């Protein structure tokens, strides 16, 4: 399957497995995605290799960042007509709580989309959506 075919398949079926298999970094950290109606919930299952701080233990902050960044890019791809992976310009991340060694979730919101740049907010949580472990803001370039 080519990339446009994978994207079309994912849009039509809501099955993200093929798309995620085509992106090595998504498989590397173990990212998964579920669709509920129009909503996308990204998941990062518990994985020993993703840990940073061995004392708590806690997920490496960089992995939480990578998970949120990848979630935002996929979210944008799904909401766009473009078949290309959007290019990230900047990424600003606030760590609010330790990400413990358990499944983590993320959801995205398109705050503002212009012709060339999109602004996406990302929130990640574990126990409860109302207690995020991190929030982030990213700008993506849309033009080809």
């Amino acid at each position, binding site marked *: 399957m080519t*990339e446009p075919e994978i994207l079309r398949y994912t849009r039509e079926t809501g099955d993200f497995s093929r798309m995620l298999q*085509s*992106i*090595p*970094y998504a*498989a*590397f*950290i173990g990212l998964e995605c579920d669709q509920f109606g129009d909503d996308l919930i990204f998941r990062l299952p518990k994985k*020993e*290799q*993703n*840990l*940073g*701080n*061995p*004392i708590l233990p806690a*997920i*490496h*902050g*960089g*992995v939480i*960042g*990578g*998970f949120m*960044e*990848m979630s935002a890019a996929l979210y944008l791809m799904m909401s766009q007509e473009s078949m290309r*992976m959007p*290019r*990230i*310009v*900047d*990424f*600003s*991340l*606030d*760590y609010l709580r*330790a990400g413990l060694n358990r499944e983590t979730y993320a959801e995205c919101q398109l705050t503002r989309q212009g012709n060339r740049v999109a602004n996406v907010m990302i929130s990640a949580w574990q126990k409860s959506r109302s207690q995020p472990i991190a929030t982030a803001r990213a700008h993506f370039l849309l033009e080809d």
Partner: protein
Amino acid sequence: MNDEIRMNRVTRFIETLNQAKELGLSVAEATKGSLTLCLPYSSRIIGNPDTGVIHGGAITTLMDTTSGSVILCALDEFELCPTLDLRVDYMRPAEPHKPVYARAETYKITRNIIFTRCEAFHKGGETIANCVGTFMRIGPDALPRAYRDLISGDAE
């Protein structure tokens, strides 16, 4: 504390971080208040299969680790400081098949907060990404003695 002690401390520290080991991060240089880590290229961390460019998330992890570990090169006593926030600006994609280096420095250390900046680059090449971070000091006593001794090299 000399640079060899700093290098050994950081090496022992990143060896305890599963994700850093998974990525194959290694210490390239450690001096007072400055640290360079190296991320080898791997097809496992590609973000764009068309170009073979590694994903920004791996760069973020490299920069977060370098910024968090440079603290070991700046303080005499080992403290683990949680990240408060991290801001990454991507200048250009990393080139495929080349290792990425990140050099971080602490530019302000207060009683509660440590401010860092970090640059990711290819050797002899232009900047891939810039990053500023803030880290919270929770004090050396927040860590178990055994872990502190392990990193400080007092375990033997």
